[in-house]
């Protein structure tokens, strides 16, 4: 096996967290090598088409489904430089204080080893750097105000807001990593709804816009189509780097003093489990059989209505211009536990999984054409992000099948907590009430449960027996190996995870720079 020139840090994964680490560590003068299994995208690759955008979704080793509620992995996870954040919706709410204490308040899962106040300054730093728009006061959250004013809203959002008002649910601007004015060579958004197809203009803060240009200019080495096989260890079991197959198919060892696992959450856990040796018979960092456990995700409920008014559903942002935190409490007087946020008025295209035609998957032939003609001008959509409660046995495990390099595939075993199954139903019923109150003449819900956003599998915690990493992502017992991403979350809250992923990564990267000795093998 070829051995590459040693690096100070080797990072697996060139997504949002990997890009931030590469940026911070190269700026601090460290030699950084990033190994990315997918393509090296450029902004010019972000073609405005829901068909072409599928290139950006998962195209790596298959992830096998399991459990009573199989997780749809391939739609939720990205592939290549920028990772999921290259096609994400850029809705960046923060987790709330109660999200960090599920273990002590509900007796479910584990508390986070940090609280909201600890993470708040890191949210503040990231939002100042990435430039987020919104209205913190309207959200009812603490911390620094957003650096940019809220996004514009269009006819659809204005109509739907009537329904939320009638329900007694306050709405606020959706906090978006999207420019609402020209600044720092990044232009104001045009509100054409291509966010999740990949925004090439620089208005949406994807990794190709903010972190990657700086990291590459500062000397970070990015190797694409580089599939990591295992964490390499010495005779004592200490991590010495990553073994991988390069783009030409040659096996190589990348030695490094420190390792950051910033792949997709499923792939991080898969790599740890597959890195077995005499010193690590259950896999690296898995002495207590915790790697893979507490896999979690969101249940997403879409509710639709047709209005007599024109709704301009092609205008706006794919995440919707407004949001509601009104049902964020963990417990209800009667009903299931868990938080809900509502996204309001997403811009929608005719095709693809979340497109107009899929809102009525039962229609075909002439009835479909008639529906499309009407919906293209008159549809209104709200979507509930429902918190799934943590379940220890929901897990990422190794399958007996292997990929083309002989590494076992990952399987996700996922069965919803009964409260979480009920919470989704509760949200759909509430959403239909809201749509009718908004004046929709026809209301229906998507009855196919959508599961999105990945968390868990490498959770952080104080106790090495019940968690995989400490509060800055260091694997217990392996100080020079750090995990990044949503896999660290002990519980998921009811907000999109990207902002929290970056706040955690920024905190850990700062520690790797300021307290370097703490990360020695």
């Amino acid at each position, binding site marked *: 096996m070829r051995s590459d020139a040693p690096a100070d840090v080797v990072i697996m994964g060139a997504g949002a967290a990997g890009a931030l680490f590469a940026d911070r560590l190269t700026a601090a003068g460290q030699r950084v090598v990033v190994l990315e299994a*997918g*393509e*090296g*995208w*450029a902004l*010019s*690759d*972000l*073609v*405005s*088409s*829901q*068909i*072409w955008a*599928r*290139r950006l*979704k*998962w*195209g*790596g080793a*298959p*992830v*096998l*489904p399991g459990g009573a509620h*199989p997780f*749809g*992995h*391939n*739609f939720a996870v990205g*592939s290549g430089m920028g990772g999921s954040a290259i096609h994400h919706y850029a809705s960046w709410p923060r987790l709330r204080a109660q999200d960090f204490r599920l273990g002590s308040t509900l007796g479910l899962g584990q508390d986070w080893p940090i609280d909201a106040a600890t993470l708040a300054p890191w949210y503040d730093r990231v939002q100042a750097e990435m430039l987020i728009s919104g209205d913190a006061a309207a959200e009812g959250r603490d911390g620094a105000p957003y650096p940019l004013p809220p996004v514009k809203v269009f006819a659809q959002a204005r109509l739907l807001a009537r329904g939320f008002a009638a329900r007694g649910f306050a709405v606020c601007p959706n906090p978006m990593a999207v420019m609402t004015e020209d600044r720092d060579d990044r232009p104001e958004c*045009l509100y*054409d*709804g*291509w966010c999740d197809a990949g*925004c*090439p*203009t620089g208005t949406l803060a994807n990794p190709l816009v903010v972190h990657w240009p700086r990291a590459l200019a500062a000397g970070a080495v990015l190797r694409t189509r580089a599939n990591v096989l295992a964490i390499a260890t010495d005779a004592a079991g200490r991590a010495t780097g990553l073994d991988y197959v390069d783009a030409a198919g040659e096996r190589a060892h990348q030695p490094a003093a420190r390792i950051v696992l910033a792949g997709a959450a499923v792939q991080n856990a898969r790599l740890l489990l597959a890195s077995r040796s005499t010193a690590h018979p259950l896999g690296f960092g898995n002495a207590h059989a915790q790697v893979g456990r507490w896999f979690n995700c969101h249940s997403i409920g879409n509710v639709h209505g047709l209005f007599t008014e024109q709704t301009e559903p*092609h205008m706006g942002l794919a995440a919707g211009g407004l949001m509601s935190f009104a049902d964020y409490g963990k417990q209800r007087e009667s009903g299931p536990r868990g938080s809900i946020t509502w996204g309001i008025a997403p811009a929608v*295209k*005719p*095709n*693809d*999984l979340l*497109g*107009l*035609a*899929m809102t009525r*998957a*039962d229609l*075909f*032939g*002439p009835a*479909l*054409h008639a529906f*499309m*003609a009407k919906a*293209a*001008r008159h549809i209104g959509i709200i979507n509930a992000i429902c918190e799934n409660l943590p379940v220890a046995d929901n897990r990422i495990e190794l399958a007996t099948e292997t990929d083309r390099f002989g590494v076992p595939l990952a399987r996700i075993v996922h069965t919803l907590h009964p409260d979480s199954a009920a919470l989704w139903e509760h949200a759909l019923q509430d959403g239909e009430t809201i749509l009718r109150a908004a004046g929709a003449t026809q209301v229906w819900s998507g009855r196919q449960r959508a599961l999105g956003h990945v968390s868990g599998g490498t959770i952080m915690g104080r106790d090495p027996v019940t968690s995989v990493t400490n509060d800055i992502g260091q694997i217990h017992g392996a100080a020079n190996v750090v995990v990044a991403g949503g896999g660290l979350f002990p519980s998921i809250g009811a907000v999109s995870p990207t902002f929290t992923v970056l706040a955690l990564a920024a905190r850990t990267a700062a520690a790797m720079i300021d307290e370097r000795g703490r990360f020695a093998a």
Partner: protein
Amino acid sequence: MTDRRTLLKGLALIAATVGGVERLLTPAQAQAAALPLKRLTPAQARTLAAFGEALVSGAAALGLAHYVDDQLAKRQAENLLMIRYLDVPPPWDGFYSGALAAVDGLARIRHDVDFAALDAGQAAALVGEIAAGPDPAGWAGPPAGLAYFVIRADAIDVVYGTEAGFARLGVPYMAHIPPESHW
């Protein structure tokens, strides 16, 4: 970095050599030129076109069968079909051949002919049966609901997912980087 021109040749359009010169064809052009199929048999292509047309009228003429056939010949990471989202392990040739065989098999049970030979009313009734779930009696293939969903999505892509498709609905396309060709 990925070369976009290379991707264009390999993804959205179908590369063909005509008179010694390589040309990029839309699926409809490829179909009109009777370009040889890469993965589907002619019989499978006929069934796919007829089934897709019953799902989303216009799909057959817009080259649904050539589009799916061309995509099935791509490596997984370059494939643009909706099925890549749906956690069906690749390669996907088997899924399509199984689904199309099941569609034809059901047509033969009900009407003693392949699906492509059904009249519009018979085709619509059979599609309704497949869409309603669970698997109709006599269905032998991947889950009928999934087959319906996947092929309907392909037909929607061809009819509505392009600049021309948006235009048919009167929806402004508003591209930042437009796809290379009107299909």
